């Protein structure tokens, strides 16, 4: 699947140059002019000059249609994939609200800031290098391990890039990038939840840039870029492994390197729960994630094919429903009362679980996969608490553990079931996991060695909103510091 045609390197360089000029200019500019009255004007000048130095780009891609797919079909296919990209975008809002809802109000500004920046940095890094690493066209030496088609975007101006010719009438070059870029940023967002409430801001943003810019794409290229896992027979429809486990491994490494939040595990070995501050916000997050998942899975059909898209929407929903119900019942049995945060995690677990095989499953299998994921996630949360890996939002259990389960499930249920498929799936899980573990380990390790990973204990106690941002998330309301049993009118 050679998605990205070769690009005219001249034009690509121009893009890249503009990008870096601008980024540096921005920073230097804003520092220098910080106190100057003309700063706004000056910055505009800088930009205008930078722009003037670069010739204008021609657009208007030639339209030599193939006769296999009609123009109408091309338009509708492209529209659906583009819309699916919009739906995946909304998942970032889902993650932002879920993660801030499940953490304390003293760290809310920090989490919102991180998650907002992940989208911004993710899109820019994916455009700068991620897309061309993930879909390199040719791999170095043809081995299917690594390839790179150069910095920046540009294919959009090439002959045929936005015509039927680009991808058999399924989508344009720009839609391809748009949809994939929205995907890429999710991997970093998953990490964000697990390292919340204690990681320093700058190192996290550096990690994000490298993770979305490099790591995610290298492993992704092995399968979706047409690399060695693809040749092997590994199957991952929409990314149980390629997106979710990858994010989950990053989350695991981050959570281990940082250590637990102050006060989470008492010296006597008991776990001291730190409840999320706003459960409506968390619920909004999960339901928005479900909504966005219709694009995540549905768009991964990569066309508007009626039968496939509709099957995928059904399997996705049924797995989510089964996951939510199973997790609710499990927590009800185990903790005697049904735990909302577990039910929410269960829905996500079902969604992650079905993602690898959403197009391969009959409905009953989707229900089973989702339900098993819902049970797994509850015990997994308990497990990570027992081994004292502190994951404030349950990201490791949801994305890593259920991502593995979902990937394996492709070999157990559905059209591809079989022992050999289980084998391929295991190879994919392990190889992608190993690469990501090592990559994340190095990045987090270097940042930790530089002493720059975790905020000071004093800052952690005060909250990162004050320490990192000097802002308060809810300044009008009185916080409580006394753990209290809150009765209505008692």
């Amino acid at each position: 699947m050679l998605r990205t045609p070769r690009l005219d390197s001249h034009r690509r360089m121009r893009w890249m140059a503009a990008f870096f000029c601008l980024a540096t200019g921005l920073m230097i500019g804003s520092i220098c002019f910080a106190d100057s009255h003309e700063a706004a004007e000056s910055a505009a000048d800088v930009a205008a000059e930078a722009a003037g130095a670069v010739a204008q780009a021609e657009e208007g891609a030639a339209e030599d249609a193939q006769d296999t797919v009609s123009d109408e079909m091309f338009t509708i296919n492209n529209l659906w994939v583009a819309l699916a990209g919009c739906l995946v975008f909304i998942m970032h809002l889902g993650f932002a609200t879920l993660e801030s809802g499940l953490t304390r109000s003293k760290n809310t500004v920090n989490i919102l800031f991180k998650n907002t920046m992940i989208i911004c940095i993710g899109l820019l890094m994916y455009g700068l290098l991620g897309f061309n690493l993930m879909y390199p066209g040719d791999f170095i030496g043809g081995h299917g391990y690594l390839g790179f088609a150069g910095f920046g975007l540009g294919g959009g101006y090439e002959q045929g890039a936005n015509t039927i010719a680009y991808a058999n009438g399924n989508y344009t070059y720009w839609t391809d990038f748009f949809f994939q870029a929205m995907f890429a940023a999710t991997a970093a967002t998953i990490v964000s939840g697990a390292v919340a409430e204690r990681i320093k801001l700058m190192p996290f943003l550096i990690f994000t840039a490298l993770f979305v810019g490099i790591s995610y794409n290298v492993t992704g290229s092995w399968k979706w870029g047409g690399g060695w896992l693809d040749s092997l027979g590994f199957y991952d429809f929409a990314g149980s492994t390629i997106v979710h486990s990858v994010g989950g491994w990053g989350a695991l490494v981050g959570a281990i390197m940082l250590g637990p939040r102050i006060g989470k595990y008492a010296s006597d070995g008991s776990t001291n729960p730190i409840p999320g501050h706003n459960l409506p916000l968390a619920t909004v997050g999960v339901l928005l994630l479900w909504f966005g998942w219709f694009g995540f899975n549905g768009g991964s059909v990569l066309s508007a094919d009626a039968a496939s898209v509709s099957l995928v929407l059904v399997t996705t929903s049924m797995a989510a429903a089964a996951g939510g119900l199973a997790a609710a019942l499990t927590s009800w049995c185990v903790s005697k009362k049904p735990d909302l945060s577990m039910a929410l995690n269960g829905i996500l677990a079902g969604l992650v679980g079905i993602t690898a095989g959403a197009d391969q499953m009959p409905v009953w299998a989707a229900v089973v996969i989702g339900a098993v994921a819902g049970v797994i996630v509850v015990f997994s949360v308990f497990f990570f608490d027992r081994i004292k890996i502190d994951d404030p939002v349950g990201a490791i259990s949801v994305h890593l553990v259920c991502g593995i389960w979902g990937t394996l499930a492709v070999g157990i249920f559905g059209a591809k079931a079989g022992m050999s498929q289980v084998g391929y799936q295991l190879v994919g899980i392990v190889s992608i996991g190993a690469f990501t573990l090592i990559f994340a380990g190095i990045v987090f390790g270097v940042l930790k060695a530089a002493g720059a990973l975790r905020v000071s204990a004093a800052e952690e106690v005060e909250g990162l909103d004050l320490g990192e941002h000097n802002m308060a998330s809810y300044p009008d309301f009185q916080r409580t510091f006394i753990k209290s049993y809150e009765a209505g009118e008692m």
Partner: protein
Amino acid sequence: MHMIEAIIKPAALDKVKQSLTDLGVLGCTALECKGFGKQKGHTERYRGARLDVGFVPKILLKIAVRSEDLDKAIAAVQSAAQTGNVGDGKMFVYQLDKVVRIRTGETDNEAL
């Protein structure tokens, strides 16, 4: 003059306020507080782990009264706030050295 600090159940506030008004005491100040006493809190559970919450919401009502009204006021609060269940609360009485009404500068009994 005396200050009565009554720690009561939130649900009793309206009744207590009413019975003070009936008595002619036309001012009081209420604070949200959390009490710890014979009435125990609950144990919540969050993601499988236990969370002990020992404090119970109460209201602390401050009522400044002339010394001659003290006993009537105490009796009024008690009868209004009493349900007979553990946790009904307590009253603490302090001597006041001085009272000032900020608006007028009146002091002591005139300020009440």
